């Protein structure tokens, strides 16, 4: 059974083709990694899976647990079990982190007690729950706040957008171990540049996105080692050899 199945997905943002014929499948219980150079479309792919209105699906579809979510509102996807830890979440004045955390815990009873436990799991003092969302948070605090919300939401499938960027060594361990524990028995898609998070999290498969296309997919350690050794040129060469071009290049040619 596949948790996430993306079929032949093409996406435009403000009239520009950003993703081309993307196929990507994450089977239940697997954790996949998404690599790609800056501007390759990683964030756009994530936003499309989440349902952001700026990402216009022009063809293809996204299935979640067998349900077609291609045109579903963001919040309904979240309710089905799509979770996300953003890389650069917006600051929202007056909206408290604790309010969001407790909104997930409501119905489970004793929300007020549980939020404290979760905050401690990511090294936050209780007072941190009274802070305005992402307002004046440091890089590390943003990561931990995103993970805290993920722990409270308990999604079936979680997208982690660069959970290792901007985190100092001390907190990397907290972040890495928390994510690893959370992912036990769950599925996820992790976007990472340097792969630090993979020191803590065992990923099954990696996909490389180049110019809005999936250039290759393979065992995560193998793909990471190749990228670290040869950079993304290796992937671009691979695409060329297979006669495939990035979608934005193709548009320019026309």
């Amino acid at each position, binding site marked *: 059974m596949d948790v996430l199945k993306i079929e032949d997905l093409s996406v435009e943002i403000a009239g520009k083709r950003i993703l081309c014929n993307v196929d990507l499948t994450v089977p239940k219980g697997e954790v996949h990694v998404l690599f790609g150079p800056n501007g390759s479309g990683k964030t756009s792919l994530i936003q499309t899976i989440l349902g952001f*209105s700026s990402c216009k699906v022009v063809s293809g579809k996204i299935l979640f647990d067998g349900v077609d979510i291609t045109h579903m509102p963001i919040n309904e996807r979240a*309710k089905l079990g799509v979770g996300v830890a953003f890389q650069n979440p917006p600051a*929202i004045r007056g*909206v408290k982190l604790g309010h969001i955390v407790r909104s*997930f815990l409501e119905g489970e009873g004793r929300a007020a007690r549980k939020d404290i436990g979760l905050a401690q799991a990511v090294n936050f003092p209780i007072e941190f729950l009274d802070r305005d969302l992402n307002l004046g948070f440091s890089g590390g605090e943003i990561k931990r706040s995103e993970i805290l919300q993920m722990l409270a939401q308990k999604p079936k499938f979680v997208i982690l957008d660069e959970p290792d960027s901007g985190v100092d060594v001390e907190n990397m361990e907290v972040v890495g171990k928390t994510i690893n524990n959370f992912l036990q028995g769950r599925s996820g898609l992790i976007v990472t540049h340097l792969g630090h998070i993979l020191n803590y999290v065992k990923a099954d498969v990696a996909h490389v996105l180049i110019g809005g296309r999936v250039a290759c997919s393979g065992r995560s350690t193998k793909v990471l080692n190749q990228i670290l050794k040869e950079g993304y040129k290796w992937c671009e060469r691979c695409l060329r050899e297979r006669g495939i071009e990035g979608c934005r290049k193709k548009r320019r040619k026309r």
Partner: protein
Amino acid sequence: MQEKKEKALKAREKPAALGPDIDLKSFTRDVKSWQRCIVPSLPEDIAKQSLNAGVRTDEKGRAGTYFQIDRSMVSQAIKKAFEGKAEIMSTKEALEKYDWMDDYWWKLVAVDADKYTALAELEWDMGYFIRALEGQKIMLPLQACLFVSKDNLNQNVHNVIIAEPNSELHIITGCVTHPNVQRGLHVGISEFFVKKGAKLTFTMIHNWAQNFDVRPRSAALIEDDGMFVTNYVCLKPVKSLQMYPVAYCKGANSKARFNSILYGAKNSYLDVGSKVVLQGKGSRGEVTARAIASDNSQIYARGLLVGEREDSKAHLECRGLLLSDSASIHAIPELIAKVKGAELSHEAAVGKIAEEQIQYLMARGFSESEAESLIVRGFMDISIFGLPSQLQDEVKKMVDITTARAL
């Protein structure tokens, strides 16, 4: 007094520098007198409306009450526990009782500033006098209600508030109209005196009618180590409201803080500013404004900081949120430094709710309208006011009700 009358007569036709001009002749001054009574015995419709502006007719949690309906003072009383510590009465009575009232009357606001100040002198309808005696810390708020019960009435009040040396005073003022009132004009002169080492917190809640015009004229004088905090909340539609209160931080280390929350709805025209003049060594000022404009409302959020003394510091922050394409917010911050070493700064941001904020909250499972509501409520977060906790809860409830109704 005669001299003031003459000045007022000369300024009778003088339009205000800001805000739409109002034809003063279109209102009535003819209204029945109200009998004096105790506050809990006020009719239920009046009690209910007052509560919407923070004035409790059960007087629970209040140290004293002044209640004026139209042109009549109906009640003025201090609770037993605070007798000899604070005073509350009509300014008419205070002027009769104290010779020294001349030292406070029209001392901070010029009687000939414009036709509204002139009107308040020529057609004066009392107002309240509240005073904390020297060294007294009055921890429960005193409340004052200025109520308009008759349609098309012009009500002109003149208030004087004194915090004597080393005293502490919290005041809630609610200005309200009866549900039957459609239009009218309220002119309110308020002069605040914060003496050496005193602390005065003044929270004013306006709850007017849709076709009502309002012209408050206020000024405060803060002496050495004194602190003046004023919170202004206006959440209901009003035809036009224009005010630009000023705080003169005259004393060494004196402080003034203005907080305001404005919610412009329907065709409201709100022109609200705050001025702080730093005159004392080490004086400090802080102006924080939150403005939300919906429907066809127009909001002018002004702020002026004047640094007249070295080693003085003030900051102005204005944030505006537009909820409608036909509404507008003009944020107009001004800084004037007259000497070296006056440190003045401002930040202003006006815009619509950012799509990325809505999407972020939707990714957490909130619907689009829930996300919008959360953002708007968050924007109106009154914890920035630093109110005493009970008062904060009351004001928060009012803000929440308005926001819920508006969204």
